[in-house]
């Protein structure tokens, strides 16, 4: 079976900020429809910059970037989940989740079925009229993901979305996220994290990045099939994948410190 063309495609991309900081150097990566790819690395290695390039929020300094967000047309094909829930504090949960459809010109009544269905999926059906200040951290993040999913995007970009949550909430959201992603069919996910365990639990492929300048130094495949139950965390396959990924990270770090 021929492979589908990549949705997100970075070819030899450099990114230099106005300050002169070289954020990315010769980064190439491809994410295909229906894939779940993790970007793993220490802080300051340019993981978030890769996401911002793929979302069209920053231009590349050199190289080629192709992604749905960079093509003309409607803006609902790419969704972005930030580390903070980034909800509008003045708006109810319903209005926050309605936003992507509203910006595409959908009225409240027209958008309501989609908004209600995604709220039910993330477990916030009873919180339509609540304001973000009334929600817990985990619920705010659920609302944020509901907003990302409501427009049925082709690409879901996530920038350490669970880094600020406690471990119990984080594991529950990891399991739920996999369900939402597999239910979304061919939606591709690119997930930035600095947690080895999170990268292994969620993704099919992990791209390991190193800093100064940011670059991809290794690619590790996670062979375990989906669906991955919570028990996957305690399996031998999980431990083995974590060990391989940890080795790759350590090797990348050694290489980086030798170069420095």
């Amino acid at each position, binding site marked *: 079976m021929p492979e589908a063309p990549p949705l997100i495609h970075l070819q030899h991309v450099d990114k230099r900020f106005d300050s002169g900081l070289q954020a990315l150097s010769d980064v190439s990566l491809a994410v295909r429809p229906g894939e779940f790819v993790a970007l793993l690395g220490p802080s300051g290695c340019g993981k978030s910059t890769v996401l*911002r390039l793929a*979302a*069209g*929020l920053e231009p590349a300094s050199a190289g080629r970037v192709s992604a749905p*967000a960079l093509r003309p047309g*409607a*803006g*609902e094909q*790419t*969704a*972005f989940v*930030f580390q*903070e829930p*980034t909800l*509008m*504090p*003045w*708006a109810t949960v319903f209005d926050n989740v309605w*936003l*992507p459809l*509203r*910006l*595409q010109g959908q009225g409240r009544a027209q958008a309501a079925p989609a908004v209600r269905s995604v709220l039910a999926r993330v477990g916030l059906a009873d919180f339509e009229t609540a*304001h*973000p*200040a009334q929600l817990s951290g985990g619920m705010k993040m659920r609302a944020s993901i509901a907003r990302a999913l409501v*427009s049925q995007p082709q690409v879901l970009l996530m920038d350490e979305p669970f880094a600020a949550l406690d471990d119990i909430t984080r594991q529950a959201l990891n399991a739920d996220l996999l369900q939402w992603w597999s239910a979304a069919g061919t939606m591709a996910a690119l997930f930035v994290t600095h947690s080895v365990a999170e990268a292994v639990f969620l993704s099919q492929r992990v791209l390991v990045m190193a800093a100064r300048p940011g670059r991809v130094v290794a690619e590790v495949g996670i062979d375990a099939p989906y669906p991955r139950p919570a028990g996957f965390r305690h399996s031998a396959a999980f431990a083995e994948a974590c060990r391989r990924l940890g080795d790759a990270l350590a090797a990348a770090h050694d290489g980086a410190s030798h170069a420095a």
Partner: protein
Amino acid sequence: MSGALRSRALPALVLLALMGGWELLVRAAHIPAYTLPAPSLVLLTLVANFGSLAGSWWVTLKITFGALALACAGGALIAAVFALSPLLERALFPVAVVLQVTPIVAVAPLILIYVESTTAALLLCAWIVAFFPILSNTVTGLRATDPNLRDLFRLYRATPWQRLALLRAPSALPYFLAGLRISGGLSLIGAVTAEMVAGAAGRETGLASRILEASFRTETPKMFAALALLVATGVLIFWGLNALSRALLGPWHASESSRPH
């Protein structure tokens, strides 16, 4: 004592105690009414003269609320223009600052010369005093949007109008309301100051000119009666704007949160 009762009863008690002390002092020390009238006499004077004072009160109210409404509209509108065009902001903000820092008592005589209608001149004076806090707060608020939300609106290709209506205006609302609360008090001060400068001339005179008039005749109790109406106006404006702020921000903004800070 419950919290709500305490928060209302305590200030009321303090106020009553102050009034009582004042009354006792005036009676015990036999202070003549033309020097310091007792609160009871002020109240009696107010009731006796209410017919004529009410007309003047109405004039001052019109100027004050007219200026506040214009300050709201003008301040918010100019802030929106500044937000959409940084060039215009750089060009015009100094003018706004000059208007703000010039003492109104000093410019009011000029305005009264240039503007034929006294009412319009008074409105203009009060507006100059009142509009700046709204303008400067709203400008700050329109800029204080969450950068991630800004990115999100860009990602979803929001139009400039959608960005203003759905993101920047709601972000600016708490700032606008904080400015409005300051401007509420200032519009009364501006109105009274301008009336003081305009003097007792003309048929339609506000409370300030009644205070001047009473002072020329050493009718001190009447001065206090007019002053009491001004104070009541200021307090009502403060309460009203606080209630508005609570109604608009209550469900979501930290400044109206019921949790202790």
